[in-house]
């Protein structure tokens, strides 16, 4: 078994909490992949009377217009996870590029990039995301884009500081002295040095993207055609789940799924950090 395989195994199964995270994530990914295929109803079709309590036909009851909530939740898993992953990968690509270029270029490039990063970090990010989403209009891609736009700055900062310490290592300085070009040093020396960190930032970014998407959708900025977990909760709040006593099966399941998904990413992310930086384990 190679060193990399051992490291992956330690991240995913090294500690009881890591195993819990891996198990949770596996189940959720399976639901996202196959949930829609096994869903008992089309979540967009009316399949029962409004506000029905859970029964053999409708495991989680129905909503205000008689759509099956269980099927909605299964379909929503795919939407929520997809937006989270698209947003996080975009944000990490942008953030890592900004961080690496800033750390390697230095000078005014570094100054300008970091000023922009600090501006994005200072502006309260949810209100910013709300404004952007309101103008762009609701769709899966727009939501992912908006989230990426407000969360790329933190990974950029983290990657930059790691890039700075990599750049100052003796072998990188040697490569520079031997006449290595900017591009050569960036792709061969600095980028490999920051990639593990970028990976752990990606996992963090995915969990915060899923939470941000849920908040935006809850505020009515989600795509009403492709309902995510947050969109289901928006309708539950707006259409009187509390007044009709429907909250136990309408409000609890989507929220619980969001929490478990975020928890899964957080647990795996922590395990990855501990594997990368053993010093943290003593804290």
């Amino acid at each position, binding site marked *: 078994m190679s060193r990399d395989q051992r490291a992956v195994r330690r991240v995913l199964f090294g500690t009881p909490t890591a195993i819990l995270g891996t198990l949770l994530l596996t189940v959720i990914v399976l639901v996202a992949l196959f949930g829609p295929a096994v869903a008992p109803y089309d979540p967009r079709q009316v399949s029962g009377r409004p506000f029905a309590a859970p029964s053999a036909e409708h495991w989680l009851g129905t909503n205000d217009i008689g759509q099956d909530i269980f099927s909605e939740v299964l379909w929503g898993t795919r939407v929520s996870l997809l937006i989270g992953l698209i947003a996080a990968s975009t944000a990490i690509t942008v953030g890592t590029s900004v961080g690496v270029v800033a750390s390697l270029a230095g000078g005014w490039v570094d100054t300008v990039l970091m000023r922009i990063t600090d501006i994005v970090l200072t502006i309260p990010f949810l209100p910013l995301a709300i404004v952007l989403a309101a103008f762009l209009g609701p769709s899966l891609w727009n939501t992912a884009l908006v989230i990426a736009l407000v969360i790329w700055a933190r990974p950029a900062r983290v990657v930059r500081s790691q890039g700075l310490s990599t750049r100052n290592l003796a072998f990188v300085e040697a490569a520079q002295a031997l006449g290595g070009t900017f591009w050569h040093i960036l792709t061969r020396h600095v980028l490999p040095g920051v990639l593990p960190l970028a990976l752990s930032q990606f996992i963090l970014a995915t969990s915060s993207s899923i939470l941000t998407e849920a908040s935006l959708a809850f505020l009515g900025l989600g795509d009403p055609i492709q309902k995510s977990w947050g969109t289901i909760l928006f309708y539950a709040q707006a259409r009187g789940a509390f007044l009709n006593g429907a909250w136990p099966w309408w409000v609890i399941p989507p929220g619980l799924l*969001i929490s478990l998904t975020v928890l899964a990413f957080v647990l795996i992310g922590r395990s990855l950090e501990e594997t990368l930086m053993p010093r943290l384990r003593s804290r």
Partner: protein
Amino acid sequence: MRWYVARYGQYLLVLLAALTLNFFLPRAMPGSPLPFLAGEEVGQLSSEQLAEVRARYGLDAPLWQQYFRYLTSVVSGDWGFSYQAGRPVVATLLDRLPWTLLLVGSSLLVASVFGIAVGALASWRRGSALDTGSLVAAILVDSLPTFWLGMMLIAVFAVELRWFPIFGAIHPWGPKSGWPYMADIMQHLVLPATTLTLATLSGTFLVMRYAMLDVLGQDYIRTARSKGVAERRVLLKHTVRNALLPVSTVMFLNLGLLVGGSTVIETVFSYPGVGTLLYQSVLNRDYPVLQGAFLVLTVSVIAANMLSDAAYPLLDPRVRRSGP
């Protein structure tokens, strides 16, 4: 001194970025910016009325003139007109701001006190049940969507137990003065403030715990102990006091998070603050209000940062002369 210049320059940049975004968003969207500026009803206006509206917003002038016109109007207090409420945006915002300040302020206070206390005790008794328990609780609470936490508190404490009202900041027909009025406000504040506190508590707790562990590893703590200073005194005078420094900066850095949290929590509880206004303006497509609310939240975060800068020298005597 130089530090302050750089710092205030950065705040100015943030403000300018928010203003520039507000200016360009309606104009960058496909089609005319008019529906964003003056309401979706512009489609039904006659051509003379349209020309009048265009002139009012200076839309026929070159873009850079429009930009400076926008900046001067914002500085002079003209933040546009809410076509939903039928009055200036600034007036609407001023109505809402006190409620947000009350909610965010009380949550910040409670979360800081609890976060600092629990963080100090947990690190002092490191590895104890309290330490492990609060670490696990922090991870769990951080995984919950803030608005869902609020919905669950409503379900349990307002719908089922009926201890607290379900929504709003005051009872519509309740007393409007004196102690009964205060009690009414407090009763409406408990659930949203608890939600916001829980959502931000873990941040303060984790930073405090980490800072404490850092200080506890310092030489002067060992010195204090070996010369026989009482444990209680080592905890309070030597450790907590020094650990509070990083915590105070991080608390203000988290303010953006707190403001974002208050936006969704206000919406859950229909609390009449800036956050609910943001939500309503999204639903009503009332773009001037939406942008005004965004601007006022950004300005509050900048103001809090400036406050933190001013407070830092008071907390840390070392920076009084040299600057942080």
